[in-house]
Each structure stands twice: as structure tokens, then as C-alpha cells.
């Protein structure tokens, strides 16, 4: 299990290659990459700044990954989240989950992203033609995270 918080960009190809090559039992590798869009709430976004809570961020992500490892039979998990100044089309986050079979890998990848969006202490501030503004949390993200607490979730 690997969690990294960094300003630098990451190369998805080399990260996934390193993850899958480490264990020949891996039969499925699911990944998600979150990107900066150039539009938000009807306004153009020229750049974004990602703030976090150093110290807590690593712990929160490790706890989320730990819960995924308890729920599913996984072989490895990688989470990389960037902070600092980002531009449209930049990569923000990578979640990669390795398992023997795809069902576990797909589910755990979605679970980690849903929990990351509601429990990991990151905040986005975006620059628009109307000025800089903090991104508001979305109710849809709360609902997405809640579905994992339903029976059978």
C-alpha cells in the first residue's frame, strides 16, 4: 500500500507498471485519474490551487485504504494526490487497485475515490474571470460515499 502527497506530476503508465510487476498474483488492475477541468459551475477556470492539512492527509488516506483492504481481497493499492498550483488538463489524483480479479479491483477503486472526496482534508480554490473562489462540496459526493454504508454496499 502506497500513499503519496506531492506537488509534482506523475506518470500513470510507469506507476501502473511498477504496481503490477511487483506481484505475479495480480490479475486485475483498476485505476482512476482525476483531472482539472477548465469549467466549473458555469465559469471558466484558468487555474486551481489545492490546499491540504499536512500530517492529517496521509493518515486519512491510509485509513481509507486500510478500510478498502478490509472490505475486499486486494493485492496492492496506490494513491497519489497532488497539492499546490494546477492548470486545466493537469492530473490531480491517481487511485490504482491491484487484485486477483476485476470485481474487487473496480469496487475498491470506486470506494477509495468516494471516501477520499468526503474524508481526506484537501480543499480546492479555483481562479475564474469573476475572481478566486473556494470550491463547494457537492451533495452528490456525500451520497456516493454513503452508498458504501448501505447493506450490500
Amino acid at each position, binding site marked *: 500500500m502506497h500513499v503519496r502527497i506531492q506537488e509534482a506530476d506523475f506518470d500513470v503508465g510507469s506507476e501502473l507498471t511498477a504496481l503490477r510487476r511487483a506481484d505475479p498474483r495480480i490479475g486485475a488492475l483498476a485505476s482512476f485519474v482525476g483531472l482539472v477541468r477548465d469549467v466549473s459551475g458555469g465559469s471558466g477556470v484558468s487555474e486551481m490551487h489545492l490546499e491540504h492539512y499536512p500530517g492529517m492527509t496521509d*493518515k*486519512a488516506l491510509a485509513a481509507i485504504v486500510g478500510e478498502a483492504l478490509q472490505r475486499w481481497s486486494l493485492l496492492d493499492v496506490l494513491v497519489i494526490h497532488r497539492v499546490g498550483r494546477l492548470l486545466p488538463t493537469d492530473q490531480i489524483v491517481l487511485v490504482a487497485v491491484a487484485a486477483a480479479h476485476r470485481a474487487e479491483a473496480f469496487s475498491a477503486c470506486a470506494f477509495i475515490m468516494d471516501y477520499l472526496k468526503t474524508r481526506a482534508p*484537501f480543499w480546492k480554490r479555483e481562479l475564474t474571470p469573476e475572481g478566486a473562489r473556494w470550491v463547494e462540496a457537492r451533495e452528490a459526493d456525500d451520497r456516493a460515499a454513503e452508498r458504501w454504508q448501505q447493506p450490500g454496499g
Partner: protein
Amino acid sequence: MLTILYFASVRERVGRAAEELALPVGVADVAGLLRHLGQRGGAWEGLARIANLRCAVNQQMVALDSPIGDGDEVAFFPPVTGG
């Protein structure tokens, strides 16, 4: 002594990122600390009324009625928006 941290829009609202504060007499939980900070007036009065204010004690997200004690690190922030 408490370490209190403020993040994102909450930090901008109170104009401060961090402070050290002797545990105020009679304050036993996060809600009590918010009431104490509100006595400073100005932007501090509105702190407890921020919709969906989130809190962490010792880097764990907790509810506002959670206990706090001497030596704790308490952080206030808006709902998270990473990913």
C-alpha cells in the same frame, strides 16, 4: 496548551492559520471551544455558525460534541473538496 489550526475558507474568514491557546477553563469539548473563540467578537462570532463546519481533533475528523483536552491539536475547516 491547545494547538488550533484553520484551513481554507475558515482560515480566510478568521484571518489566521494557526495559534496556541491555553485550554480555557470550563472548555471540555469542541463546541465549548467554539463558544470561547466566539467571545473574541468580529469574524470569530460567526465561526460556530458556519454551515457544515468540520472539525478534527488530533488529525481525526470528529463531531463538534467531541471532547478535547490539554495538548490536543484541533482543526476547523469547511467540507473537503479533494479528488
